[in-house]
């Protein structure tokens, strides 16, 4: 119990330090607005989107489980980190900044994820079938 209070106390002190550093910034309210925006975008947009995808597939009688769900998690995560270079407006400081063909790479990884998931599920089904026959 004492440990918990000590950790919580230290945590509060560090939060205080962070808050103190924050209010020294030129426009702390703008930063607070962006912080609130981060929560609103996640809780109001990203999370409902994920749940909507699950609900939609559920409506078609598909329960998102196992390999298809894992494939969607991987594909979604790769898409999340590919979005900044794909959406970034304007030019770059020089040709060595953001130099890759990110759209091609994104399409490649999406295909790779689908292929890997298909192969994995297929192999597993085949193995299970073979086991059942013997």
């Amino acid at each position, binding site marked *: 119990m004492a440990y918990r209070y000590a950790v919580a106390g230290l945590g509060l002190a*560090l939060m205080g330090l962070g808050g103190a550093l924050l209010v020294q910034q030129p426009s702390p309210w703008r930063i607070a607005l962006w912080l609130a925006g981060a929560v609103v975008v*996640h*809780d109001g947009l990203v999370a409902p989107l994920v749940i909507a995808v699950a609900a939609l597939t559920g409506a078609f009688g598909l329960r998102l489980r196992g390999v298809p769900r894992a494939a969607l998690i991987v594909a979604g*995560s790769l898409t999340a980190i590919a979005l900044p270079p794909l959406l970034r407006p304007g030019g770059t400081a*020089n040709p060595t900044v*953001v130099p890759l063909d990110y759209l091609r790479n994104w399409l490649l990884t999406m295909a790779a994820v689908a292929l890997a998931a298909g192969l994995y599920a297929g192999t597993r089904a085949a193995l299970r079938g073979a086991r059942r026959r013997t």
Partner: protein
Amino acid sequence: MRFPLRLPADPPVTFKARLHDARTATAVGRWLGLAFAVCFATGVLSHFFQHPPDWLADRLPSRPYWGYRFTQGLHVISGIAAIPLLLAKLWAVYPRLFAWPPLRSVRHALERASVAVLVAAGVFELFTGLLNTFQWYPWPFSFVPVHFALSWLLIGALMVHLAVKWPEIRSHWTRRSPGTLALPASDGPDRRALLAGVAAAVGAVTLTTAGQSVTALGRLDLFAPRDPAVGPQGLPVNRTAKAAGVTATAVRDWRLSVAGPRPYTLTLDELRALPQYEVTLPIACVEGWSKNARWTGVRVRDLLERAGGGPGTGARVESLEPAGAYRVMEMGREYAQDPLTLLALRLNGEELSPDHGHPARIIAPNRPGVLQTKWVARLEVA
């Protein structure tokens, strides 16, 4: 486990999806906590290497030479790995957002407030950090101090969260912990499949970005903001000569002036005539990318010594560039006296290209790239 959650409006909203439970939150949360801890520690370290306070400047170690490359690479790797983990963690606890009544007591209100700070700071830090690596700044504040301030808020809120949730974490720590056993046993395989998917996602985002700093993964670099192979003389560039306002005319009559008790100036040919050393040192950017290169030039400590700087002196370095936050760079004693620290004239066997700092640049071990001053015009015993 089902969450029959009453929202203010009837009918009640039910989260039919399973696995929104404390075992999932614990299993994902401990990896997320580890990622945040690594990211925080490496970030604070980087902050002190990039902006050392006076009391620290002369104590910062110049070894291991790969130290900053390692810690800053890890900073960005752990931050990117935290993205799928944070999303999975927030998914697991999402129904709690709609807890009813929203505030049961003062304690509950405080707990929810700390979670709100934790979520806000977590999402904000990963978002701003990722965009910063792509040099994309859509926000109306300056990145470094705000990212730094919020890291303290985040790690503090994380500690409060851990302290508050400790009994729940402990009772769901393993598959056989009492809390886990109280959950429907049929969820076990489903949860393991979910966790395997999250682990695969962490692996995928890591493998496709870490190549910007981990040489062995270079060929898998698909989404990182840099390709270590792309750049003049085989090395990426952050600030070009043109962007820095360093023109061919400014370089033509270039002299290095060395200030100290016995000041002197040198032409490029005179510098080339001094004893040359070759070192292999990385450029390690605060944005996470890094690459080793072969540098040839004159030892900074030899130049300082000739100007009358004793064995314990640091240096103040000025660039030709007319403006810029890092035009003047202070170099602590450990760096200035390290035999690996050069005023480099050549890179990978060729004269420095303009974008890499022609006619002369600093290269020092265990230092962020912004402090590897290019187009050096003046060196001062400090």
